[in-house]
C-alpha cells in the first residue's frame, strides 16, 4: 500500500473512473438505491435517538478500549480460543503465516475483509505458496480479475455482468453468459469445492462483543458460515476498535450496520464465533484464532481530533451518498478503504502527506455525516487533516504540503485586513479580465491555476462596480439607510 512511487495519482485514477461507463452505471444504481435509502431509514426510524445513543456508547467503549479488549480476550481464551494482539500489519501477517506453516495449511478460503487487504494478507500467503480463494462473490470476481475492490461493501461495483460473463468464461472455462443467476450458480459450484477442501478460513470481524467473548460476521451469501465452520482452523482478523463492550451495544451496532449497508433489518446470515467447536460437536473449527490489529489505530485513538473515526462500523453508507465517490469510484482512493471514510482513515493509517489528495479532494458537503449510522463527522476530520497539511504537524509526521499556497493565504490575509487595497485589487482584476470576456459577457478562458475552472465552465465576470462602490457612491437607492459610522 505504501508503494508511493508506482502509485497513480488520485486525480489520474479519478479521471479513469469518470470515463469508465460500467462503473458510472454501477455507482448511479448503488447511490440511488442505498445512499438515499439509508437516509430515508434514519428519517423514519422508530427510534430516532438510536444513532446518538450508539455513538455515545462507542465513544465510551473507545475510551476504555484496553479494558474492553482484555475482557474480550479473557472470554475467548476461556472458551479455548486463541487471541493474538498484533502491533503492526507485519506482526499480524507473521502470526498467520507461522500458524499456517505449523499446521501445514495449503488452501485458505477467505471471507470478505478489508483489514486483510489493509495488512496485505493475501499476497503474503500466496508468496508462501498457499492457495487463497476469496469466497464473497464480489471479492471472488475481483480476485479472478486480478483487480482491487472499488467499494467497501460491493467490491465489484465497477464491473457489469457482461464483463463478469467474459471473466468467468475465461477463468472458469464455462460458456459465455451474462445471466446473473447462471453466473452466480457457476461461482457457487467453484466456491463450494474450495470451501470443502480448505484447511484454513480467514475472515474479518464486523463487530466483536467483549461481554460475551464472541465476534459477529454478517453476510448475505452464506459463504462466511462455511468459511468459518468447514476448515479446521478459523482465523479472524479484527481492527482493534471493532469491539462493543456489551451485548446491548453490540445489538444496536448490528442493527445500524445492516441498515446502513444494505437497508436490511438483518442480513441473511449472522455468524457468531467465539472459540473452537465444543467437544463432541460436529460443527465448527478445531481451532479459533482472533488477531487483534493495531497498525496505527492507537495513534488515532490518542488524538481527540480523530478518535471518533474509530466508531466506524464500515457499513459503506457514506460511500453510497458521497457525490465525489459517486462519480470517481473507489479505485481513486488507492486503498482498501474508499469514499469519505477512506479519505479520513487512509491518511491516518498510511501517511497524511502520502495521501494529501484524499484530504483535499472533497467538497465538505456533509452528506456523509448525515447518513453515517454512528454520526461520524468526517468533514470535520477532513478539515483538521487539511489544517495539518497547511502548517505541518510533527506529531503526525506531516510536513507543510504546499508552500506557495501558504504564501498565497498569508498575503490574502493581509489583504482582507486592508479593505481599501483589497477592493482596489478586485477592481484591478475587473480591468485585467477584459481580454478574457466572451461575447455573452462571460469569462471563458483564464490563465494559470484558474484554468481548471474555465476548461469546462464559464465564469461570470467581475462587475463594473462592486456593491461596495455603488454603496459608497450613493448609487443604491434606499429610504431606510442608516449611515451611521460610515466613512467614505
Amino acid at each position: 500500500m505504501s508503494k508511493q512511487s508506482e502509485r497513480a495519482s488520485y486525480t489520474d485514477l479519478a479521471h479513469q473512473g469518470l470515463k469508465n461507463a460500467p462503473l458510472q452505471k454501477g455507482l448511479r444504481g448503488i447511490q440511488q438505491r442505498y445512499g438515499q435509502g439509508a437516509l430515508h431509514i434514519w428519517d423514519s426510524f422508530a427510534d430516532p435517538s438510536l444513532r446518538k445513543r450508539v455513538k455515545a456508547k462507542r465513544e465510551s467503549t473507545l475510551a476504555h478500549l484496553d479494558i474492553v479488549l482484555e475482557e474480550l480476550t479473557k472470554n475467548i481464551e476461556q472458551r479455548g480460543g486463541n487471541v493474538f494482539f498484533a502491533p503492526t500489519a507485519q506482526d499480524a501477517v507473521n502470526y498467520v503465516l507461522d500458524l499456517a506453516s505449523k499446521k501445514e495449511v495449503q488452501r485458505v478460503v477467505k471471507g470478505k475483509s478489508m483489514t486483510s487487504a489493509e495488512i496485505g494478507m493475501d499476497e503474503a500467503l500466496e508468496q508462501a505458496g498457499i492457495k487463497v480463494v476469496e469466497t464473497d462473490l464480489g471479492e471472488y470476481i475481483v480476485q479472478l480479475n486480478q483487480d482491487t475492490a472499488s467499494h467497501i461493501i460491493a467490491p465489484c461495483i465497477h464491473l457489469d455482468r457482461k464483463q463478469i460473463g467474459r471473466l468467468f468464461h475465461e477463468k472458469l472455462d464455462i460458456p459465455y453468459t451474462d445471466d446473473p443467476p447462471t453466473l452466480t450458480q457457476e461461482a457457487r459450484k467453484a466456491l463450494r469445492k474450495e470451501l470443502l477442501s480448505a484447511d484454513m478460513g480467514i475472515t474479518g470481524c464486523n463487530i466483536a462483543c467483549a461481554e460475551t467473548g464472541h465476534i459477529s460476521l454478517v453476510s448475505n451469501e452464506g459463504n462466511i458460515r462455511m468459511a468459518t465452520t468447514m476448515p479446521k482452523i478459523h482465523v479472524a482478523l479484527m481492527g482493534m476498535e471493532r469491539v462493543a463492550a456489551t451485548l446491548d451495544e453490540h445489538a444496536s451496532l448490528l442493527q445500524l450496520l445492516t441498515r446502513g449497508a444494505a437497508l436490511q433489518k438483518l442480513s441473511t446470515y449472522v455468524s457468531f464465533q467465539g472459540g473452537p467447536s465444543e467437544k463432541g460437536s460436529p460443527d465448527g473449527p478445531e481451532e479459533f484464532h482472533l488477531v487483534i490489529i493495531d497498525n496505527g489505530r492507537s495513534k488515532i485513538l490518542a488524538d481527540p481530533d480523530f478518535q471518533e473515526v474509530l466508531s466506524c462500523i464500515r457499513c459503506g453508507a457514506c460511500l453510497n451518498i458521497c457525490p465525489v465517490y459517486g462519480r470517481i469510484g473507489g479505485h481513486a482512493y488507492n486503498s482498501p478503504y474508499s469514499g469519505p471514510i477512506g479519505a479520513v482513515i487512509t491518511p491516518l493509517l498510511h501517511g497524511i502527506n502520502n495521501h494529501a489528495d484524499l484530504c483535499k479532494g472533497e467538497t465538505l458537503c456533509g452528506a456523509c455525516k448525515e447518513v453515517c449510522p454512528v454520526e461520524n463527522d468526517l468533514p470535520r476530520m477532513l478539515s483538521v487533516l487539511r489544517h495539518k497539511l497547511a502548517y505541518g504537524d510533527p506529531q503526525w509526521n506531516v510536513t507543510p504540503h504546499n508552500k506557495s499556497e501558504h504564501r498565497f493565504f498569508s498575503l490574502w490575509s493581509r489583504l482582507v485586513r486592508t479593505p481599501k487595497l483589497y477592493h482596489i485589487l478586485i477592481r484591478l482584476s475587473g480591468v485585467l479580465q477584459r481580454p478574457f470576456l466572451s461575447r455573452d459577457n462571460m469569462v471563458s478562458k483564464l490563465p494559470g491555476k484558474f484554468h481548471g475552472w474555465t476548461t469546462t465552465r464559464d465564469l461570470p465576470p467581475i462587475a463594473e462596480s462592486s456593491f461596495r462602490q455603488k454603496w459608497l457612491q450613493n448609487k443604491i437607492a434606499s429610504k431606510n439607510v442608516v449611515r451611521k459610522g460610515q466613512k467614505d
Partner: protein
Amino acid sequence: MSQPKTVSLFIQCLVDSMFPEVGEAMVNLFDRLCIPITYPADQTCCGQPAFNSGYRKQAAEAAAHFLNVFADAEVIVCPSGSCVHMVRHHYPLLFEDDPAMLQRAQQTAAKTFELSEYLVDILGITDTGSTYAGTATYHDSCHLSRELGIKEQPRQLLRNISGLHFVEMNDSEKCCGFGGTFSVHYPEISTAMVDDKLDAILASGADTVTGCDISCLMNIKGRASRRGEKLQVLHIAQLLEPVHGGSHE
C-alpha cells in the same frame, strides 16, 4: 412590531465583486419591508477559503477583522449560507483558546443570519409580495441545508411569490461540486458533479434555478453557459425583490 432592528448587510465577497445585483436586491427587499439597513464598508471576506483549505491562522485573522467591522451591528444578515456557517460555527472554533475573542465570536455568531432564515424565522415574513413569471426549482446548498438546517424557509418564500410555479428537482440536497478551491484543484470531478446537478435541474422542467448561495449558483451558471443550456440562474434575493422580481426574463 416594535422598532425593527437595523440590519447590517454582510455582503459575501463574491456577491460584492461579481453579483452586486444580489446585494442591491436585498437592499430593495429590506426597503420594501421598511427595515433599516446599514453597510459596514470595511468588510472584505469572512475567511472561508482559508479555513476550508486548512489555513486556520489566516482564517482567524480574517475572522478577527470581521468581528471588528461588525462589532456594533444590531443584527447581521448575509445572502450566503456557507458564510453564515463560517461565522456561526467556525469562528468560535478558531478562537477556542482565546476566551475574550471566543466571547466576541459567540456574540457575533448569535446575531448573524442567513437572509431567508432572517425573513422567515426572525421577522416572520413568508410573503414578500413579489412576482415572477416562470417555473423555478431550488438547490439546497450544503452548508445551508445540512449545517444550518435551513430547508423550508426558502421554499416557503418561493411558494408565495405570485406567478412563480415552484417545482422540486431530484436530489436537491446533493452537492453541486463547487467546494471552493476544490472546483479549481479538481476541475474534472467538480464538473462531473455540476453536470449531475444541471441534469437534475433541467429534468425538473424548471426554467429558473435559485438558491441561497451565490457560489453554487455561479458554478451552475458557469456550466450551464458552457453547455449552452437555456436556464435562468438567480439568487433567491433577486426573486424576492419586489421591484425587479419578474423583470429578469
